[in-house]
């Protein structure tokens, strides 16, 4: 004579719920008669039956089941509201050997996270989603949910859900059934014992699909919430069967598990820490300067503000990034703030760069800028008032006339577009030509000592750092930079000769 347990606590549950705070460690936190407990038991049984406990990752929603990790002795994650399928996608892709179960309620899946859910279903992610539909928001006290029935009274629909203003209940299974990718979709109810047995079959099927990695499975569970709906165990069963099932018909909407061949398990991703480091930080070029380096020129003792304006596609933002990168490689604090229209080509674009050896309080520039680079007439007119007295203005003389500004400002025009198109052979390099011309102004008037030589070197380092994977881009931009410099120097000389 031997006594065995025929029906008892699944081994997938912790024996004592040590993670649960407070003195009660044997019970779940759910209200009496809650469907979550029944579904938890079915899922635990299925996980135990298919032997996938070790590699299962159960993703808990925000909602009543948020503490699912108290109970399940498997991998668990609590994620931001509604994001379970999104996080599940990441888990199943980063760890292809894991089995991802997303457990969600109607607020989590039907409201805030519906997009995450439907996109994951559409991608056919290898996961199983359990959707607990109890026709209200349980955790917060029984408010109206997307699944609340027409005319149903809740905390926030005291006169019953009015379909004219609140719309109709969301049929999640039917919506998912419109997609190509899902493998298995079924709606079940946790009411009478036969229905729970059907639900058990559906849960087992979904977990089996998960084990075989057949694709996306969805089980919607009409679940009793007797406390919030103010009913007894019998009344809630009648409510589900008589009212909810009319609107949410039970049954299997799709079962393609037999037609779907199990996907092969992809090779596990790189786990070697050294290799991960290599992936994250591809290379450490020997560029930059020691941490203690400071430029000696006096102009760098103060915050320097640079504004660049033009239209989209001229390389305005990259010119800014280049300057910012140069400053970064010389130990400045630097900010780069772009501003551009919605168009990718055309429209106005501008960026503000601030470099300083102390803290930069705001990355925006709307006045007192030290250097303005204008590549179109409109940008010049728009930003010229932001230039400080005795600031520097650099403009593209091939596209605009010499601006009329007060004599205290230094103005230099360079045929950037002409030089880039005709000499370099790529009009996109006009921004590097501008930088070449800038280097002439700075070296002539502002930089001191070693810094005179360092500007060009900083440019080279910045361009190599920024485009290390594109040698052709580096070559062209370096060429454009030195062409710009040459032209600016020639003009300087001829000016001196004239004088």
């Amino acid at each position: 004579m031997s006594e065995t347990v025929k029906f008892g606590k699944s081994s997938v549950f912790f024996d004592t719920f040590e993670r649960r705070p407070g003195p009660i460690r044997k019970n779940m936190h759910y209200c009496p008669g809650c469907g979550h407990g029944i579904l938890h038991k079915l899922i635990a049984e299925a996980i135990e039956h298919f032997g996938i406990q070790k590699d299962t990752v159960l993703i808990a929603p925000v909602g009543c089941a948020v503490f699912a990790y108290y109970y399940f002795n498997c991998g668990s994650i609590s994620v931001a509201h509604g994001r379970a399928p999104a996080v599940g996608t990441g888990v199943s892709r980063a760890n292809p050997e894991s089995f991802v179960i997303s457990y969600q309620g109607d607020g989590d899946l039907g409201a805030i996270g519906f997009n995450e859910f439907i996109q994951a279903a559409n991608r056919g992610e290898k996961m199983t989603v359990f959707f607990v539909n109890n026709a209200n928001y349980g955790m917060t006290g029984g408010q109206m949910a997307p699944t609340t029935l027409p005319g149903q009274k809740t905390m926030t629909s005291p006169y019953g859900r009015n379909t004219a203003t609140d719309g109709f209940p969301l049929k999640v299974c039917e919506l998912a059934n419109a997609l190509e990718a899902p493998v298995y979709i079924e709606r079940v109810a946790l009411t009478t014992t036969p229905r729970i047995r059907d639900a058990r079959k559906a849960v087992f099927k979904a977990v089996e699909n998960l084990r075989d990695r057949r694709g996306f499975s969805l089980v919607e569970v009409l679940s009793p919430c007797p406390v919030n709906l103010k009913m007894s165990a019998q009344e809630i069963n009648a409510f589900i069967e008589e009212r909810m099932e009319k609107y949410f018909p039970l049954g299997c909407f799709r079962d393609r598990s037999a037609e779907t061949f199990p996907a092969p398990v992809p090779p596990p991703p790189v786990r070697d820490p050294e290799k991960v480091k290599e992936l994250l930080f591809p290379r450490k070029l020997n560029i930059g300067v020691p941490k203690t380096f400071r430029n000696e020129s006096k102009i760098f003792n103060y915050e320097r503000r640079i504004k660049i304006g033009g239209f989209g596609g001229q390389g305005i933002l990259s010119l800014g990034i280049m300057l910012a990168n140069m400053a970064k490689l010389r130990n400045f604090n630097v900010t780069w703030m772009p501003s551009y229209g919605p168009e990718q080509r055309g429209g106005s674009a501008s960026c503000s760069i601030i470099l300083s050896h102390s803290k930069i309080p705001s990355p925006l520039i709307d006045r007192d800028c030290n250097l303005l680079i204008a590549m179109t007439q409109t940008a010049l007119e728009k930003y010229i008032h932001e230039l400080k007295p005795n600031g520097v203005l650099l403009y593209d003389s091939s596209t605009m006339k010499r601006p009329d500004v007060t004599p205290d400002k230094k103005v230099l025009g360079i045929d950037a577009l002409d030089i880039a198109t005709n000499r370099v052979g790529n009009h996109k390099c006009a921004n590097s030509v501008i930088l070449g011309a800038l280097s002439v102004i700075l070296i002539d008037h502002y930089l001191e000592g070693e810094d005179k030589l360092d500007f060009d070197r900083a440019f080279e380092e910045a361009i190599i750092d920024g485009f290390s994977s594109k040698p052709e881009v580096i070559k062209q931009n370096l060429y454009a930079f030195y062409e710009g410099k040459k032209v600016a120097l020639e003009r300087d000389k001829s000016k001196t000769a004239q004088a």
Partner: protein
Amino acid sequence: MSRKYRIVIAHEECKGCRRCIPACPKNLIAVGGELNKQGYFSVHAEHPEDCIGCGSCYLQCPEPGAITIYQTEE
């Protein structure tokens, strides 16, 4: 050889939701008169050895460990 079943309901784990009472085909389960530590009137099985091992009450019960059904082979 015959099989016998025995139902055990954990007094402290029951929350008294009464889902199991109509589920039992033998009407074995009834509400007891004692409050447990959680403050619920828990249910108890009146003749636990009359259990037929169908598992209906176990399926209905939302608590993982409140109902256990043992099977004895003789």
